[in-house]
């Protein structure tokens, strides 16, 4: 196993109804994306607490992406609208503290958008990899 090769660690929070199904569809269609992306299933994107995002960075994630239903299509009618506001505010704050913008993203992926899911993950992984290791929100205690 190559030890030195840098591989970003990406946590993807996917809502159960659209994006997780979109990820499944990507799988059904055998659309490849980096194995660095690890998906956590949540009922709705609005379940994602900023604390989870910071926790992921603390534990060594290099990028965190939140995927939900397209605005207007939320299974719970309005969850992703709250996600949209919360994350806009949070990401802007992280940027204000000088954390790299490309480490966080929100993307709307429907259950039909397997291709979009794979493309999004490829793109995000690439952008995060370009930034290199997350240094600005790391917790050295959690390093191996």
């Amino acid at each position, binding site marked *: *196993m190559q030890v030195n090769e840098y591989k970003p*660690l990406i*946590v993807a929070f996917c809502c*159960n109804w659209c994006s*997780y*199904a979109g*990820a*499944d*569809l*990507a*799988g*059904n269609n*055998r*659309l*490849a*994306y980096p*194995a660095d992306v*690890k*998906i*956590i*299933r*949540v*009922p*709705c994107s*609005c*379940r*994602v*607490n*900023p*604390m*989870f995002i910071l*926790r*992921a960075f603390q*534990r*060594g*994630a290099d990028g965190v992406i939140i995927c939900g239903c397209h605005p207007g299509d939320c*299974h*719970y*009618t*309005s*969850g992703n609208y*709250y996600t949209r506001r*919360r994350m806009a505010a949070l990401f802007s704050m992280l940027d204000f503290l000088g954390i790299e913008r490309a480490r966080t993203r929100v993307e709307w992926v429907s259950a039909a958008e397997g291709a979009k899911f*794979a493309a999004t993950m490829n793109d995000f992984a690439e952008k995060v990899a370009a930034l290199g290791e997350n240094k600005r929100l790391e917790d050295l205690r*959690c390093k191996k």
Partner: protein
Amino acid sequence: MQRVGVFVCWCGSNIAGTVDVQAVSEALKNEPGVVYSANYQYMCSQAGQEMIKAAVKEHRLTGIVVCSCSPRMHEATFRKTAAAAGLNPYMVEIANIREQCSWVHKDMMTGTEKAIILGKAAIAKVNLNAPLTPGESPVTKRALVIGGGIAGIQTALDIADAGFPVDIVEKQPTIGGKMAQLDKTFPTLDCAACILTPKMVDVAQNEKIRIFSYSEVTDVHGFVGNFDVKIKKKARYVKEDICTGCGACVEKCPMKKVPNEFNLGMDNRHAIYIPFAQAVPKVATIDPNACNMLKNGKCGVCAKVCAAGAIDYKQKDEIIEEKYGAIVVATGFNPISMDKFDEFAYSQSKDVITSLEFERLTNAAGPSAGKLLRPSDGKHPHTIVFVQCVGSRCAACAEKGKEYCSKICCMYTAKHAMLTRDKYPDTEVYVFYIDARTPGKNFDEFYRRAVEEYGVKYIKGMVGKVVPEGDKLKVQASDLIANKQLHIDADLVVLAAAIEPDKSARPLATMLTASMDTNDFFTEAHPKLRPVESPTAGVFLSGACQGPKDIPETVSQAGAAASKVIGLLAKDKLTGNPCVASSNELMCNGCSTCERVCPYGAITYIDKEFRMPDRTTKIRRVAVVNPAVCQGCGACTVACPSGAMDLNGFKNSQIMAEVDAICK
């Protein structure tokens, strides 16, 4: 600590082809809490499930992790397996190592490595799982239908037919709604009254149905199966149970100049009135704004002539409180106001009318007794111009009209044009349209007949301006196909006004905590799969309150909503989804933040007495989640600043444990 069993599925070669399943089950054996780990060809097969059951027994497992396909595929299967083995079904977690691993990664090493991590995350989660039991709540076996148009009528009849009591709340003095105002109905041209009024009578005679006419819903509390509703029965100054509907009072009422709503103000009615002959209930109503007796105590004629003694000038609004298990919204539609469409001279000329007014003009019970006469001079019009899409599909001028298609106008305009040509063949009929939209059984045939058999002149193009000049209406229009401007001297112009939800819908939606779209149409729980349910459990949608629709569609939706209601009322108890939010009252601030983001109105507040550590007591406001209403989205959990609100099955600690496991 849990005793976790890990079951890695090969899914034939689907997983085993890119994931070393043996290595995965070996690696996961060492995870904290894991006491058993195995792999098998098809975990979901009968044999695979038996293997799980046997392991649960043999290793006294308290939690199960299945590394297999997507939980969307087989989570339910494995939950049932767990239940069959005596475990709580919610002690199962799935690691998706097929769709999100073996199928998207080609390299065995990569796939195996990721599968192990996904397995660890599922183990970390299941270690924090707790058995969940769905809550149960009783069902009040009575339905409320709000709105007594054809949608409400059909829904009520169908529910009553299944044996459940139903109440209809109608704000007008009679049920019937818009359909009662129509003349003929497309595409079969039956007379609307002929098919509607028998249904109205059925409603009146049905023992299971109560009609609260001239009434409004003022308050809704509770949740699916258990709504508490307040209905305001407005004073009609006539004792409903005594009035025989003989009409003597109406005849003698000296106040005769009240614009008649039923005929859209094209003629007058009395201060005491019965909207139309077949009204249900056939009971008189006094218009308090017009009645001299009510306004200044001078008159009292109706009381004198009423043989039954039904008149009661002292009657007061009455509040009725009732419990319901289900609520059907059937609040219907109205044509939009033509105020903003001055280019069509609607306010300037009586001979520019809306299509609904045209219905009344051609109706035998209408202001002209069914003769097509111009409202201005009572003459027979020889040239009629129908303008379609007035305020519909108005993307460019959203402040004026509606962006959406009103759906019914193409067909009723074809009907109007056809009927006109049929009755009055000497009439020139023009229809200006953007597109003639005729999807529906026998719809296009109907439209073709109007064009081909009845010689209606369909012109693709819009009317730019209508100018009244003498007794003519100068219509300026464009013909987009011939690419030329047209000038038509018309005697009558009929505007196919866009339709919009009734104004009462918005406040009602707030009471019901049911969501609406930006146009104030009620939102369905799912646009395709749950089209007659509101996202708010126990609230169902019938008819045009959910979107523009014609009568056949309305009736079918009404039936569908009724069947959903019947399905609900047929249950003695409702079993909920146990993955719902719950609030830790010791940490709750009672700040109402969660309530504001809950799309279902599942959160209420109570004042609760707490014993403080210093042995004093303190009364604090705390949130209570109704598990029967909560759908488990989790919006409240993030809105809550203190973290008092958490979501069963997706607890903060569980999600963080997954994050930790993945980021290890």
